[in-house]
């Protein structure tokens, strides 16, 4: 099954990007397509320095990009709430690279 995956990373180095230790305040978000096995878009996190509600905007970004799963550090309660409502599977990981995480979560990303 193909699926788009929303990945929270520290810097923008494609699948070699290191995962950050924060979800909403990650530097960039990769949208990875399991069918094409490639990153189809990269989004800079313009909200990351905002005082409040960052998780809401970021979770909404995952929704807008039509993602079915998200990979990143433990999200805050508001982001988690939106992801859960939207049926986006949250896969928690805060070390290694985006590529390694995709490899690790392969069973979950089968849908």
């Amino acid at each position: 099954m193909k699926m788009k995956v929303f990945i929270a990373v520290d810097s923008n180095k494609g699948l070699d990007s290191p995962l950050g230790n924060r979800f909403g305040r990650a530097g960039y978000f990769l949208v990875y397509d399991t069918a094409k096995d490639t990153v189809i878009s990269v989004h800079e996190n313009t909200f990351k320095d905002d005082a409040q509600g960052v998780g809401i905007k970021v979770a909404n970004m995952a929704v807008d990009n039509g993602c079915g799963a998200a990979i990143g550090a433990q999200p805050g309660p508001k982001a988690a709430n939106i992801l859960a409502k939207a049926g986006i599977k949250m896969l928690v990981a805060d070390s290694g690279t985006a590529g390694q995480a995709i490899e690790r979560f392969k069973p979950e990303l089968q849908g």
Partner: protein
Amino acid sequence: MIIAVASGKGGTGKTLITTALALSTGHCTYIDLDVEEPNGAIFLKPVIQHETPYNVVIPYIDKEKCTFCGLCAKACVYHALAVIPTLKNTMVFPELCHSCGVCSFVCPVKGTIDETRREIGKINKGHCGTIRFIEGRLNIGQPSAVPLIRGITSLYIPDHTDELFFLDSSPGTSCPVVETLKKSDYVLLVTEPTPFGLNDLELAVELVQDMGKKAGIIINKHDDRQTLIDDFSQRVHLPILLRIPYSMDIQEAYSRGIPLTEVRPGIKTLLKELIEQINVAGGEK
């Protein structure tokens, strides 16, 4: 005259001073605007006559009319809205809402976004003898004290008055303090003669100067050997209006909710003179 008592550093003696000021003058209004942890009532022991919930306005989305276009969520700078078009859901996060109304302003479908109310705290009114007592109590879990403080200052504090108002501020120099100081004619800055006290006093002085407020300093827990506050006050040309000595009996009484005026009745005269003095200083404006 509206006198605010602020501090920068917490625990320097704002409530000790504000309640003593109120008890020394008798006929006045005491307002506890430290709404996150109001404790003036512990010392003044007021009779509360009215307890009123305080509400703010938040959006109510009519999901029958909403097209889930997402314009409201994009426009909201506080990120209080999320739109999930596939689920036909627009989510409101009330605790992030600042009641600005931009969501209903940008909504293209008339009548979709209505307003509803959300209680954020309570306003308690009463009296302690001839002192009028007002306090704000923010509900637990509310992230911002500012709307409640603004509500109280706009409802109960006139722009100009000959009557005496004493405002007990929260510590620090952030938004709740700014909101508390806005209507004040004079700011009493309470500090203690320690490096921490000095550091936060410096920040508080910057704030009152930015706001164009007249101010004076009160040193609590005063110690003759420490002159760091004196040196600073000379540098910024602010008067030291009162020194309260460091003393175990004052601390002990405070911990039991006994006001300063009971442990040191002599302070009443000093505080009345202090108000006279700043009344004259305020008139020089």
